[in-house]
């Protein structure tokens, strides 16, 4: 398991929020932890994959999309808090995210 610090968590949070704000053309201040990325922001799965690719590049992660897909079967991404929690876990556990 890779250790995640508060600084990394904040960095990931900023990256994710900035990404959704830009892609969905909304102000950052409109995105809260309760925001539903799909229903409230109109994001789609292709945006989500792009965000995963960006994160993997930034943190040099070797992550298979299927691992994330299986994780999402157990834990739907209903809110921004769910999305961030998943990205923290991807950073920590990589492909083992599915078992978290």
């Amino acid at each position, binding site marked *: 398991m890779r250790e995640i610090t508060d600084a990394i968590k904040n960095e990931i949070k900023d990256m994710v929020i900035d990404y959704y704000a830009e892609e969905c053309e909304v102000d950052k201040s409109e995105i809260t932890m309760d925001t539903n990325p799909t229903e409230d922001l109109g994001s789609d799965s292709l945006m989500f994959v792009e965000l995963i690719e960006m994160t993997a590049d930034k943190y040099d992660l070797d992550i298979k999309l299927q*691992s*994330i897909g*299986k994780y999402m*079967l157990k834990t739907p991404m209903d809110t921004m808090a769910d999305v961030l929690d998943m990205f923290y876990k991807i950073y920590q556990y990589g492909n083992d995210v599915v078992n978290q």
Partner: protein
Amino acid sequence: MYNRAFLFNGIGSKPEKLLAQLTPEMTDKYESYRAEAFTRLGLDMDMEKNTGYSAQAAEWMVPFLCDRVVYEYFIDKGIIPDIGAGYSSGIVSASACFGSIKHTDAHDIVMTHLSMFRGLQEKGIKLNMGIVIGFPYDDLKELLSGKFNSDELIIGSSNSSFHNMISGKAEAVEKAIELCISEGAIKAFPMNTGTAFHHPLMEQYSQEYIGLCRNLDYKEPKYPLISVFDQTVLQTVDEVKKENLHNVCTPMRWDLALKKLEELGVKQFFDVSANGAIKKFSRVGRKCKVYTLEDVINGDYTL
């Protein structure tokens, strides 16, 4: 040898999403082309007044008309392609914009899709297509190969390392989607097309399309195209004709076509779809970039 490639999407996006991206000048041009095409095809200019197959035809015409407007906008801006590629019906759009067939020919091809659709419905043949996001082509092929035979289901296109389109009998598509979701697809969903484009079984229902494509008066394209079927460079009348003839019943490898373009030296890709639909599902190397209409309008691309 090649630096700049134009990518054509053709049918696929919702009209409102395409039209929202056009500038007022582009919208005027679009409306002029639409009036010309709709009058010739007997479609009502009021989209709401077209019903049944006419409504479908009217909706399918929009991306073709938008592609033409965006293509001409790029050309007017001095953005000239060295080569192009068409994704599915984007092959028809590319053939028309590159001058290999007339725009009216492209519109007639769209109308043959409707007769194909009508034939399938009348015979009660249930076909469908679906999108699977999250699997590389080889992994998806392996996952599906043990469960479905190729008469039932194939991968109709591999679009990128994570994006595939499946095509075949409706029941098989439905089962494949369930399977993919349970095996970790980020998303998998049916397209509810009523057809199975890019599956060989479509050949028997596409005789009108094939007949029309065979008899069109093709010209050499102003710029070459890359085949999405075998990744060869298409420059002659016969080669463009063959690409159009293969279109409906042959699986595509969009991912390999883009890779081939990169190998040929392409660094700048231009998404000719008004809403940047191609950019969303395509992936190119780090040294390359896909520009959209929005990028060009906003000045994010300079010659």
